[in-house]
């Protein structure tokens, strides 16, 4: 056998052995994915130290649809201030959340009302979101430990399903499941569970767009799984990350201004 023949033979032998090996590796993409790093990457898209949001809540309670317009300022995980602009009935209502307490101001009563403890898990304004859902900005990588359950298709997208277990046993949602795109570091679907394992909320993240260097959904559709025929769509009409928010917005005095 001459050298030329030897080279051709080696090439053929490589093709026969390497290609199948490559295929085997390609058939197990989840092995290469570090779930915690994926969650951190998702946080880099979703989470920021501060946020300013102008948005709408479209609340469908199964019998009628209402739209609330509001602007929200968030700092960190547990500081949040919302001001409702429309409709007329809700105009002027303000909510300020700091740590585990929330104060609400309504023009009808001209009072600051404290909502705390388990009341924060009540439905906000008849929507599928609780006060906690609305006013907390959880950093998943810090609050949860992630593991990969499986890989699957979500529509046209290859996703991995991550199971997130809360580090803090007092958290409302002890378990979350997210359908994450490992290439774009975004979430298509999220499910939130109680400690008992009961499914409480399902959220679809839709219409992703580029905002700076982040991919963020234009809308999220929330469904309270304890109710029937209801859904709430949170439309993010405008969102600015890492914006400077004056300290006055996280003080009780802001409520009566």
């Amino acid at each position, binding site marked *: 056998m001459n050298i030329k023949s030897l080279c051709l033979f080696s090439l053929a032998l490589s093709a026969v052995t390497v290609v199948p090996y490559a295929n085997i590796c390609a058939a197990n993409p989840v092995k290469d994915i570090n779930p915690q790093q994926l969650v951190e990457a998702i946080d880099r898209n979703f989470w920021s130290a501060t946020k300013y949001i102008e948005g709408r809540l479209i609340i469908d309670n199964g*019998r009628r649809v209402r739209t609330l317009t509001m602007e929200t300022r968030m700092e960190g995980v547990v500081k949040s201030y919302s001001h409702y602009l429309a409709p007329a009935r809700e105009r002027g209502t303000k909510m300020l959340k700091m740590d585990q307490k929330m104060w609400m101001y309504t023009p009808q009563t001209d009072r600051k009302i404290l909502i705390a403890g388990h009341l924060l898990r009540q439905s906000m304004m008849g929507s599928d979101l609780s006060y906690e859902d609305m006013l907390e900005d959880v950093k998943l990588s810090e609050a949860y430990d992630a593991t990969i359950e499986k890989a699957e298709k979500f529509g046209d997208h290859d996703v991995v399903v991550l199971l997130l277990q809360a580090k803090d046993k007092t958290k409302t949602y002890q378990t979350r499941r997210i359908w994450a795109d490992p290439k774009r570091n975004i979430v298509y679907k999220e499910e939130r569970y109680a400690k008992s394992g009961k499914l409480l909320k399902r959220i679809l993240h839709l219409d992703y767009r580029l905002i700076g260097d982040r991919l963020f959904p234009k809308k999220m559709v929330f469904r309270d799984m304890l109710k029937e025929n209801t859904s709430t769509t949170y439309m993010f009409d405008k969102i600015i990350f890492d914006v400077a928010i004056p300290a006055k917005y996280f003080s009780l005095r802001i409520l009566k201004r």
Partner: protein
Amino acid sequence: MTRWMLKGIFRDKTRFLFPFLVVSVGVALVITLMGFMEGVFMGMVDMTANLDTGHLRFVNKPFYEEEHLFPIDRALAGQQETRKWLVDNSHPQVVWTPRIRWGAMMDIPDENGETKTQTPVIGMAIDLFSPGSPEPDRLHLASSIIRGRAPAKAREMLVGYLLAETLKLKIGDTVTLIGQTFDGGLATGNFIAVGFIRFGVFSMDKKMAIIDLADAQNTFYMDDMVTDWLGFLPANIGYNEYESIRANIEKRLPELMRDPPQAWAKDDFPLILSILDQRNIGEITAKFEMVRGVIVGVFLFLMILVLWNAGLLNGIHRYGEMGLRLAMGETHLQLLFSLLQEALLIGIIGVVAGCLTGGAFTYFLQEIGINMGDAFAKSGLMMNDVVRARLSVAGFITGIIPGLTASVAGSLIAGLAIFKRSEANLFRELES
């Protein structure tokens, strides 16, 4: 003959006194016991009707199925149209009254207007201010308010006295209600606590507040809507007639559903219920009737036994008289019949005396009543603290029938011994 019999009865105390006492005491006891049971039971029914269910109730089915959650989004709209239909299609004596059942958080501010305490409350909104509204009297508001006064204008509230104690409320304090509007939005409103009320039902005293119907409609954005239509019937219509009145209205519902009020939602589906369909009142009624039947039956049986014994003793006492009457040609049946006549006369006299005694005592219990203190309030049953008897024709009938029956039956059984007497042996007995 009757006059002669009466003379004979009154002249012979041994023949008359004991049976008379047994019948009169028995009848008095039955009337009093029936009156008391009826009073306690009907007091519970009336209180439940006035505070909660009405004698009849017209309510949206989706609301009724989840009423513990106060889903005011399932209230019925078209208040005026609905009232008109109810008035046109029900028994002429039904008085229809709109109410709203609501649930909310009650927030009490401190001197700075900040939250001091909070608690969930259940509420009732009734028509307090319309001229001639029967609701304040129906709920005995005037006598139930233990401090303060009844609401006299909008945005005033009555609070259960135990709730007021828990929240450390004072008369004149402002409270804020936080709830949901009819369409799921945020409902808030300030009210002034002008009075503390004692319902006499622990759960209500601990958790309930009353506001005017219009205030509830404003606060919860329920214009022209109510959650309940309660129908009230007069006392002369007994609870055993409620079902037929309800069924007559139910028959006309399909006609209403073919052309419902325009303001109703497409999936509104009204129910018509009687008080017997709610809060287990039907089961309690059935048990009450059974117990009442058992008590009357037991009394009847005991009275028959006692009077039978008295009849036997009477027969021994009048052994010679019976023999003489047989010897003089009276037949056994005639003799027995005369004994039964005597027993009937004694029974009538005893019944009259028993009715007077029992009736007087029942009337006393009806007017004065027995104060049970907190026993019933803490039990959770809707019963007034002061239980009263109820004098009724049915109570008297329930006493009279066993009184007469026992007297006659006892004498009948004892009198059967007459048939054992043989005319052939009479003179031998006379000689001996």
